[in-house]
């Protein structure tokens, strides 16, 4: 690990083909062996078991929620009474889609493969992500979590772009850039970063998926024009803007303000205790250290996993509010000093207490 401490100082370059990427490979941060808490094999096998029941229940509620809230929004259209319905519809569409995309992408939400695939495709569309490209992007995120130059899903770059982070809550920048990417992919062009993480055999599928998404958006706009109504857009597409705030609120907490270029998820990820509604929308991804350390454990087993490993982890943030206080303080420090990050103290019970993961300061 000494080689990490001796790494030469270079500015952060978040592209996957630049100097940070080359340095990450050279010093062994790419595809590294990460720390994981020891759990007896029989217990782990039990935690990893797949079930259809919890995800079927949650998906039925999710779909019913879409239908009821859309009905209320349309029924009361033109009056203030429609507002709460559209707010709720927006969150179910534009925020809950992210966790459904995520869990079904891992293939852990349902036991039955095709159920994972169907929900994955729907949620990918809702969140405006190419279902093929993002599967590979997310695989890389798990291989090289917050390794600069390797992880394509670093939401919290340094120094932080505060205006962009605030705008993310209304989805304008995110939806616009996602649409731009989908349009580019639909024309058959993949970026250098995408070519870096999507295998050749999958690239045609990625382009086809982008074309399907763009065709649905085009049909929605055509319907709105034909019916001279805003409602088709309120149902499809726009919820990604007006309903994404919960996805952004929870998503920024996953790694925001914490260390990058470490190979211990306890140091670069955050577990936050949340209320039951947020946990339903977020499908328990508030147990984010647990998810990264053991990504094959389904969302419904994460609370059980948390109880087993918490003595080996830093104390979780007690609430969304507390986590934001910690993160915003870090952001303010990073505006002056991009090298600043929240240093996690592992509990004395951490087993083993791994100095090589915990105390190495990555000089740049």
């Amino acid at each position, binding site marked *: 690990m000494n080689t990490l401490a001796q790494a030469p100082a270079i500015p952060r370059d978040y592209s996957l083909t630049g100097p940070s990427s080359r340095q990450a490979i050279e010093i062994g941060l790419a595809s590294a062996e990460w720390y994981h808490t020891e759990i007896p094999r029989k217990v782990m096998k039990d935690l990893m078991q797949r079930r259809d029941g919890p995800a079927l229940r949650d998906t039925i509620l999710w779909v019913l929620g879409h239908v009821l809230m859309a009905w209320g929004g349309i029924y009361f259209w033109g009056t203030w009474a429609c507002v709460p319905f559209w707010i709720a519809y927006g969150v179910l569409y534009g925020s809950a889609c992210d966790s459904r995309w995520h869990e079904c992408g891992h293939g852990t939400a349902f036991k039955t493969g095709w159920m994972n695939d169907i929900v994955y495709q729907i949620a990918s569309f809702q969140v405006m992500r190419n279902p093929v490209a993002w599967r*590979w992007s997310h695989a890389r995120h798990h*291989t090289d979590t917050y390794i600069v130059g390797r992880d394509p899903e670093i939401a919290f770059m340094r120094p932080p772009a505060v205006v962009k982070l605030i705008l993310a809550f209304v989805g304008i920048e995110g939806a616009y850039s996602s649409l731009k990417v989908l349009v580019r992919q639909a024309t058959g062009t993949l970026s250098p970063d995408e070519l870096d993480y999507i295998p050749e055999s999958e690239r045609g599928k990625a382009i086809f998926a982008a074309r399907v998404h763009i065709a649905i958006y085009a049909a929605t706009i055509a319907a709105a024009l034909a019916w001279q109504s805003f409602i088709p857009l309120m149902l499809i597409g726009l919820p990604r803007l007006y309903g994404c705030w919960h996805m952004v609120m929870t998503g920024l907490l996953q790694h925001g303000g914490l260390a990058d270029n470490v190979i211990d998820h306890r140091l670069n990820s955050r577990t936050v205790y949340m209320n039951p509604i947020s946990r339903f929308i977020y499908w328990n991804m508030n147990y984010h250290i647990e998810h990264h350390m053991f*990504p094959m454990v389904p969302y419904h087993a994460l609370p059980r996993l948390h109880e087993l490993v918490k003595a080996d982890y830093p104390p979780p943030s007690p609430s969304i509010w507390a986590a934001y206080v910690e993160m915003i303080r870090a952001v303010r420090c990073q505006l002056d000093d991009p090298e600043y990050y929240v240093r996690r103290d592992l509990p004395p019970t951490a087993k083993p207490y791994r100095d090589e993961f915990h105390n190495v300061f990555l000089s740049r």
Partner: protein
Amino acid sequence: MTDWIRACATDDIDPEDLIRFDHGDRTFAIYHAPDGRFYATAGRCTHENVHLCDGLVMGHLIECPKHNGQFDYRTGEAKRAPVCVNLQCFPVKVEGDDVFIGL
């Protein structure tokens, strides 16, 4: 000519589970299928540098613990993204209570 190496005892692996077996500088995964048969594959996932021994066996599939890619461990066939490259398989024989892998 196949060199048969003893990998483990039959009761070292629960049914529908696997263990890691290292030999020289090579590492393997030995499986105990639900039907009682034993199989062997290369130990590391073909997608990234992750050992399969921490993964989950579901019927005749092994799921990589890191990215949830799946292989049929009887044939090595890659069954679910992000794995695209098949896994190398090795012959296995059982003699008495011992499992041997053919290298």
